[in-house]
């Protein structure tokens, strides 16, 4: 395979913004020009070299457990040519002007930062080399570097980066785009297993997370939210609450989900969160929810069934004439698939600390996956300039996409403004968290496929019922028009029909893919069965010759050869035969999915006993390009993602809504996966290709869901088409 850029337009924009750091890189040199002798010297925005030759590296992206706080500095350290034990890491603030756009989302950090981080390290190294060349009056080309020192072999001279840093900071800045990078064959840090930089602090219980924020004079706020999303505050009586010792105020606030000027929440502010939380029992609040009470889980299901029975309201993709092709097909397969609303249930509940100061500025300590989006929302809600907002990014106790939304910043900002000068920490309790999520939207699909007499897939239809507002799918409720195998089937029709909801929706790890993989790979398993072959073989035939399929505008292309290679790899890895197990109750299923630039094929082994499904083992083959940056963490992310997918397949229960309100209360009715549901092993193999490295935290997840459904079919003969997979 040839190397090809799979950076899409959005990524390019991100990369360009990060390139903005190049400008700042030069600007910061002026500041660094006159340091005190003992102060660390900055070489660009990410690197500071201390007098003891330790190197402090700022990690630019939010850390949600994906290991980015460790991985991005690895890229810098590699090209800076320092030893990993010289490196100290600092979490950067949320500051797009300094660092470019910062986000933990879309598995984008690797594809967008692979070059900029290495270039930042290489540029600083080049400046240190130039400083040594100047000092020794030798040609820079005769100098090498190693473990934080510049070496002149010919004369046997060596000088530490620390001794050179002050001079290096004054040499002309290097063009980041032209700075030479290492040959990957010489990498000493990239590709080596490195433990998480915060692991020692985590096991000591050191304050790291947003909820751990402690500031002098800090007050605590508990949330009283309208029980129905979209409903507004009609009136409230806080007389009884304000009599409670330790309670200071009750503040009407808005999540940003209701029209400007309206409130949908109250914050009880006190000396203790526990006291404030308990005081909620005494607060009387009346809510206006008339516009939302018609929405319910049962109502959606009824409406979806009616919509599926009629023609789609809108076309998403059309090629040839699917109906005509189905009419002459030798075999037609049809099935309905569906999946429910889900919450994110990060273990650290949503929280945020904020302090409003007398000069109209506000400072945040926020566990946010997208600080700049938070800045924008806070600026709008508080009517202040974005520049008046300072954002410190804390470690995050689970993201999964929930913290791409910044309602907790918006809410905490208003409470802080009402309590000027005092830091306030707003903490959701578990029920607040489950009932005020940005849910993975439910969806329904009527799938139809036509096979010719040779068993080839010649016609495909999907009628997708999803949630929309103003004729457009709501956040994370969309489907890609190029969903495989649509574009390679001669006659295809993807149509859509729309439902309304009051629920706020959002991205859940591998958004849309976590649902579409189940629907399409589950259904294709049925098609393969009708064709008398197994799913890997149907995929091989359908993928055809290695080529890039045209994506939707702005998306990376889908390479059929890379897909084929991981399918073959996992089949070999797991010794897949496609034949049923000779042991009753045992079954094997396969699933493939391409998302977030990553190609993943997975096999799941299950044992079904009295209707209970136990996953014995998961096998994964993945292609994320030429380089796995931190193998120790990559293995961990993939095992976690696969088990997270099993949770969606088998454990998590639908988020149920009655009369507009979400009913989920705690982990009793929204159960998370526990040790008893963990497979014996999640085994991993790689397919290395010449493509630039990409992410894996998300693309590992989707295939395990259909692979589990397909394994249950193999084990029991039962085809489960609705999540969670439940044997009656």
């Amino acid at each position, binding site marked *: 395979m040839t190397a090809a850029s799979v950076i899409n337009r959005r990524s390019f924009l991100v990369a360009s913004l990060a390139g903005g750091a190049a400008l700042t890189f030069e600007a910061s040199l002026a500041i660094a020009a006159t340091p005190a002798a003992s102060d660390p010297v900055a070489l660009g925005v990410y690197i500071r070299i201390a007098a003891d030759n330790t190197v402090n590296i700022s990690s630019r992206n939010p850390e949600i457990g994906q290991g980015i706080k460790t991985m991005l500095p690895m890229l810098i350290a590699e090209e800076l040519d320092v030893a990993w034990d010289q490196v100290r890491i600092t979490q950067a603030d949320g500051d797009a002007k300094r660092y470019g756009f910062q986000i933990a989302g879309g598995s984008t950090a690797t594809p967008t930062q692979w070059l900029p981080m290495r270039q930042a390290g290489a540029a600083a190294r080049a400046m240190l080399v130039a400083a040594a060349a100047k000092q020794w009056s030798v040609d820079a080309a005769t100098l090498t570097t190693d473990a934080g020192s510049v070496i002149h072999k010919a004369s046997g001279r060596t000088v530490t980066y620390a001794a050179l840093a002050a001079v290096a900071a004054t040499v002309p800045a290097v063009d980041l785009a032209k700075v030479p990078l290492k040959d990957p064959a010489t990498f000493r840090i990239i590709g080596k297993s490195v433990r*998480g930089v915060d692991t020692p602090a985590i*096991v000591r219980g050191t*304050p790291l997370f947003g909820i*751990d924020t402690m500031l002098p004079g800090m007050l605590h706020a508990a949330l009283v939210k309208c029980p129905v999303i979209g409903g507004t505050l009609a009136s409230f009586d806080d007389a009884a609450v304000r009599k409670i010792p330790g309670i200071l105020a009750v503040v009407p606030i808005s999540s940003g989900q209701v029209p400007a000027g309206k409130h949908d929440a109250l914050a009880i502010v006190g000396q203790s969160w*526990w006291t404030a939380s308990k005081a909620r029992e005494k607060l009387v609040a009346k809510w206006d929810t008339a516009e939302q009470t018609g929405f319910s889980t049962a109502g959606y299901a009824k409406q979806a069934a009616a919509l599926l029975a009629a023609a789609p309201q809108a076309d998403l993709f059309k090629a040839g004439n699917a109906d005509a092709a189905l009419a002459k097909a030798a075999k037609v397969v049809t099935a309905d698939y569906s999946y429910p609303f889900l919450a994110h249930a990060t273990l*650290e509940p949503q929280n945020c600390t904020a302090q409003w100061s007398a000069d109209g500025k506000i400072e945040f300590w926020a566990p946010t996956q997208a600080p700049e989006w938070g800045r924008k929302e806070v600026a709008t809600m508080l009517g202040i300039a974005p520049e008046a907002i300072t954002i410190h990014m804390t470690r995050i106790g689970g993201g999964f996409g929930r913290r791409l939304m910044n309602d907790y910043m918006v809410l905490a900002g208003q409470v802080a403004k009402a309590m000027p000068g005092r830091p306030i920490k707003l903490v959701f309790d578990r029920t607040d968290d489950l009932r005020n999520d940005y849910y993975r939207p439910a969806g329904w699909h009527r799938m139809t496929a036509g096979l010719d007499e040779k068993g080839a897939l010649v016609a495909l239809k999907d009628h997708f019922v999803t949630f929309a507002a103003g004729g457009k799918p709501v956040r994370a409720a969309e489907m890609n028009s190029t969903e495989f195998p649509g574009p390679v089937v001669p006659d295809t029709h993807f149509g859509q029909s729309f439902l309304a909801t009051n629920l706020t929706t959002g991205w859940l790890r591998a958004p849309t893919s976590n649902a579409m993989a189940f629907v399409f790979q589950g259904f294709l398993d049925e098609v393969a069965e009708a064709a008398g072959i197994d799913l890997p073989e149907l995929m091989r035939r359908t993928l055809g010759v290695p080529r890039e399929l045209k994506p939707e505008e702005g998306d990376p292309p889908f390479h059929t050869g890379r897909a084929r290679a991981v399918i073959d790899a996992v089949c070999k890895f797991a010794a897949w035969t496609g034949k049923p197990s000779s042991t009753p109750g045992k079954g094997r299923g396969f699933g493939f999915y391409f998302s977030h630039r990553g190609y993943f094929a997975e096999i799941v082994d299950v044992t079904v006993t009295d209707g209970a499904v136990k996953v014995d083992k998961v096998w994964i083959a993945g292609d994320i390009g030429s380089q796995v940056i931190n193998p120790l963490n990559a293995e961990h992310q993939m095992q976690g993602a696969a088990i997270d997918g099993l949770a969606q397949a088998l454990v998590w229960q639908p988020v149920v809504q009655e009369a507009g309100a979400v009913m989920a209360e*705690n*982990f009793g009715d929204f159960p998370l996966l526990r040790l008893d549901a963990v497979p014996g*092993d999640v085994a991993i193999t790689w397919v290395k290709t010449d493509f630039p490295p990409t992410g894996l935290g998300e693309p590992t997840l989707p295939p395990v869901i259909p692979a589990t459904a397909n394994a249950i079919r193999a084990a029991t003969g039962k085809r489960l088409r609705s999540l969670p997979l439940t044997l009656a």
Partner: protein
Amino acid sequence: MAVALTVNRKKRMVEADPEKPLLWVLREDLSLVGTKFGCGAGLCGACTVLLDGVAVRSCQTPISEAAGKQVVTIEDVASLPVGKKVVDAWVELDVPQCGYCQAGQIMSATALLTDTPKPGPDDILAGMNGNICRCATYLRIQKAIRKAAGMGEPA
């Protein structure tokens, strides 16, 4: 009411509502925030501490019940010989992802290995099933427990 208890080998006096959960006394009154709030209902295990050597959910333990007792939290668990082995194994195998549940996991694992120095799979399940890890670091959690116990990998 005033409650006297020992936290991490230090005698402490706390003035608090007798109903206030030990979790919130640790976090708010004693600034020991290593013990985590996850569900407030004893369902997730993030708030697990040792109370007189027994793993308890501190969100379900009123401070009045801790009066006169010994509390060990994540901040000092490594002072116990078993706790030290658990913490070391956690670091060596790099168990955390987000890390939020890990204090509770470590406290439960310490209690498990104190009672059952060589746990079998069923012992590990019984001792650890109450602790949720949303990132699903369970494979490494089990491995770290076996490592701390000086046991090899199962066949």
